[in-house]
């Protein structure tokens, strides 16, 4: 490297090494120029280093934390709204699906799901039956005898009191669908089950069994009991 090349390099980067450093050691005039250039470099660097605002890092970290929390909150809100929207769509879909199914199918499906109660034969207390009807605001004054099971069950879109009455030809399931007025009286056979829907003043009674021999007698006794019941409006 000659002096001209050294002076050029000095203006480009006075901290360069290699040939540049070697020439500096060999040429006193260039070494002096280098010393001046280094002094100028220090002055430039010092001038570039303007004061940094106090607590700059803290303010950035605070902004990041606030921003992250806001994004997290927005994400959660979006997720909640998405879930709610999906829930509504799902519920609407299920509602349509349930509504689309006829009552006999809903009743048989429910009976199949709770088939284990058909084996119950021990009579249950009138009080437990009264409690089940009370749940839906129906106060029963007379309770027909013979039930071995009672529970409050959802049946499709309906709520119901689910009863089982063991008979000599097999158990008969009774579902009282609260506040259902839409069904017509109907005798049906589905999946090997006999069934009957009986519209009443404040709901619908559904009877299902492998044998329909006791349907008339059970319909009469429960129709009378439900007619004399008190309904909360």
């Amino acid at each position, binding site marked *: 490297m000659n002096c001209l090349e050294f002076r050029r390099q000095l203006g480009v980067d006075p901290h360069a090494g290699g040939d540049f450093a070697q020439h500096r050691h060999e040429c006193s005039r260039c070494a002096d120029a280098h010393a001046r250039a280094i002094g100028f470099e220090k002055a430039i660097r010092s001038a*570039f280093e303007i004061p940094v605002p106090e607590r*700059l*890092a803290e*303010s950035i970290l605070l902004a990041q*934390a606030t921003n992250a*929390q806001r994004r997290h909150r927005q994400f959660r809100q979006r997720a909640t709204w998405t879930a709610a929207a999906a829930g509504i769509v799902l519920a609407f879909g299920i509602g349509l699906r349930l509504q689309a199914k006829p009552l006999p199918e809903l009743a048989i499906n429910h009976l199949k799901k709770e088939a284990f109660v058909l084996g119950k034969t021990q009579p249950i207390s009138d009080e437990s039956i009264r409690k089940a009807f009370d749940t839906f605001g129906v106060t029963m004054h007379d309770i027909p005898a013979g039930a071995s099971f009672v529970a409050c069950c959802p049946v499709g879109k309906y709520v119901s009191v689910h009863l089982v009455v063991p008979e000599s030809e097999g158990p008969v399931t009774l579902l009282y669908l609260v506040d259902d007025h839409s069904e017509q009286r109907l005798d049906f056979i589905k999946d090997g089950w006999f069934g009957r829907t009986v519209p009443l003043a404040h709901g619908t009674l559904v009877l299902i069994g492998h044998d329909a021999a006791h349907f008339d007698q059970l319909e009469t006794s429960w129709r009378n009991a439900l007619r004399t019941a008190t309904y909360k409006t």
Partner: protein
Amino acid sequence: MTSDRSFPATGKQRQFDALVRSLSGDLFRYAYWLSGDEALAHDLVQETFLRAWRALDDLRETTAAKAWLITILRREHARLYERKVPQFTDIDDVDVPEERESQLPEFAGEEGLIRSAMLQLDPKYREPLLLQVLGGFSCDEIARELNITPAAVMTQVFRARQKLKVILAGGKPQGDVVELS
């Protein structure tokens, strides 16, 4: 500072904290010399780090963090001017401040003279010099960052130093001016 957060510090958060604490000063200075405005520089640095946080997973080598952050900052600065709508004020309504920038404390003394001189430099000269002196980048790295050739970087930093000397000498060339071919 961590008490301001309602969630525990993760590895990513710790990495980010370290970046902010070690590089925010340099980035602020870089932003200041880029924009010439302290408040704007503060905003630029903050926005740069917020963007960096969102893209932190892209940073594979922590040794490259400074160059990565400077790239983000430069883009953010450019974006600022894309977004900025100039507001025009009638010249008669403009108040002329008594205090000039050169009279501010950081512009007093010899350092102040150099700072004033730097602000007079054309940005195309100031920025490569800034990257070299403050950022510690080589000519090749500056060339990549500014998307120009290394030879152009060498010419610009050379001219930047010469022009600074000229401005500091009161507009007259000082000593021998040797330009690169």
